[in-house]
């Protein structure tokens, strides 16, 4: 819906990565509090109120915005913890609050009018009707698109809605519709919606067995590695399983998202902002990825061709396999 310059939204898991992302050219950074109110509730990560206030000052001084993810679903009888997180974010001067739960959206809409409200990917709003509901009820100004839509579908969607859209372009890739996946709690008792975690590390074991290493999550074998094979983290939906007598990466290969080649297409589709996943990532990684995407977005804005964009983003793979995910219809 916008013909302006696309905004690059970058992850900040810690105050140090916030500064790194800003220095590397992020138009906006997103972060969360050190509790279960955000979907990256990992040890050693996230912000206190004081750190957020300082981070907002730093970002604003350098011309960047700060968005605060309060995007898990509030626990019964503890909704105040989520409301208080929203209050703190607003008090710290955050430019936007990213939320998914109706209770949180309603609270922000009623109490923090000046703070922009963005709909988290965890809300999984993929239709004009769903997005329209959140826009008319809570004044949502931007929706982070679920990773199920092709570029063609995003183009069609943007013609039917009057809020901004933000699309993931790089980083971890959920193969399930985010916010609608309970696989992790089924195996481990902890899930993104309930606890802000998926396939939690305390439930992971690596066992050496019969000339192979077995990665298990809560006792379920997620993958098995032969000697010399790189050992991965047993994220539930990226494991090898057997069905119909065939063993395969049934849900998704151990790949990450790289839609760098789709930046121009997403711009043409009317997408306002591009998002990089990875609040769990360190300063070095964030600096490198943000710098590369800054260059790539600027090149697209200046009419650069696909070869130039590919050259800029070459090397942003950490040797791992990548996919453009659902943006390419054949992924389905």
């Amino acid at each position, binding site marked *: 819906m916008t013909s302006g310059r696309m905004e690059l939204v970058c992850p900040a898991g810690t105050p140090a990565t916030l500064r790194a992302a800003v220095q590397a050219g992020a138009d906006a950074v997103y972060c969360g509090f050190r509790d279960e109110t955000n979907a990256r509730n990992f040890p050693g990560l996230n912000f206190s109120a004081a750190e957020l206030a300082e981070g907002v000052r730093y970002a604003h001084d350098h011309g960047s915005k700060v968005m605060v993810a309060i995007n898990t679903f509030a626990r019964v009888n503890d909704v105040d913890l989520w409301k208080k997180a929203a209050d703190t974010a607003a008090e710290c001067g955050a430019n936007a609050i990213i939320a998914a739960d109706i209770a949180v959206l309603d609270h922000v809409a009623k109490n923090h009018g000046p703070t922009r409200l963005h709909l988290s990917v965890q809300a999984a709003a993929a239709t004009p009707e769903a997005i329209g509901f959140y826009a008319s009820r809570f004044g949502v100004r931007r929706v982070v698109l679920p990773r199920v839509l092709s570029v063609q579908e995003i183009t069609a969607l943007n013609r039917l809605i009057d809020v901004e859209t933000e699309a993931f372009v790089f980083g971890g890739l959920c193969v399930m519709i985010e916010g609608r996946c309970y696989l992790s709690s089924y195996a481990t008792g902890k899930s993104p919606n309930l606890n802000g975690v998926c396939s939690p590390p305390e439930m992971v074991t690596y066992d050496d067995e019969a000339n192979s290493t077995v990665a298990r999550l809560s006792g379920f074998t997620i993958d098995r590695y032969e000697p010399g094979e790189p050992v991965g983290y047993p994220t539930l939906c990226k494991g090898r399983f057997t069905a119909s007598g065939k063993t395969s990466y049934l*849900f998704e290969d151990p790949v990450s998202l790289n839609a760098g080649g789709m930046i121009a297409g997403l711009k043409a589709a009317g997408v306002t902002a591009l998002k990089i996943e990875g609040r769990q990532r360190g300063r070095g990684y964030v600096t490198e990825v943000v710098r590369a995407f800054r260059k790539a977005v600027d090149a697209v804005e200046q009419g650069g061709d696909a070869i130039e964009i590919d050259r800029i983003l070459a090397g942003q793979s950490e040797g791992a396999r990548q996919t453009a995910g659902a943006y390419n219809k054949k992924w389905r």
Partner: protein
Amino acid sequence: MSGIALTLGPVFFHWSPDRLSDFYRRIADEAPIDRVHVGEVVCGKRMPFSDPAWPEIIERLERAGKQVVLSTLAAPATVRERRSVEDLCTDERLVEVNDVTALPSRSGKPFVTGPFLNVYNEASAQYLIELGAQTICPPVELSLAAVGGMAGACPGAEFEVFVFGRLPLALSGRCYHARIHGLHKDSCQFTCEKDPDGLAVETLDDQPFLAVNGVQTLSNQMQAFCPAPTDLTSKGVGRIRLSPHTCDMVEVAKTYKSLLDGIEDPKGARFVLSCLDLPGSLVDGYFHGKPGRRTLTEK
């Protein structure tokens, strides 16, 4: 008599029109269930097959005195799917909302929120009650204590829990049946029809784990929560949901009815269920606030 009502949820699987007709005929004639959900919720591509069968099924169920609820798609995407949701929402019958897409057209008229809608707390529940939610069946990962917390704070709605069937754990934009068969969703050849209870997924160590059903992932194990009726009434739960499988669902319904009426005790009900031809072993961990895969009642 506990006063707790029995619901038959929508069929998640791609059953042929004949199978659907036969199934609901028996439910209408024999099952002690007062509310029956009908309609496709998992994949809009299946709707052209089942759509012609519904009017007769609905008539049959209503003639037998069942309350029919029209379930809507959990992840509508195409223009046709969105229109189907909107059309169903204009119906005078009760409608099950499984995605926010249905809310604009259903607000102000009574609806059920299904387990695909993220209702995790009393504030969200209350917001939806004000829009017309009469019955709330929260996501399956919530504990009975959490559902009780919501029910206690929201006297304006009836709360329902998913007690029987493979647990609906995830939805995707990608069709796993198509992927397993080397196809894409857009040209899937409806291979999901071959697995009327879903396709079992095992780990590399042959542990039964999950089941796939097109774009849906379910548990391999069967939720089979058999509480004492007072455990439900004390939490404000007014309704329990059975999810259709190919096993004898009339027997399942009768077993739960006996449990709710105090004729069968929890252990006995569980034993009866375990004797049926089920696609997976029995679990009930979620209700106890534990991993869903766990079984706690027996201990």
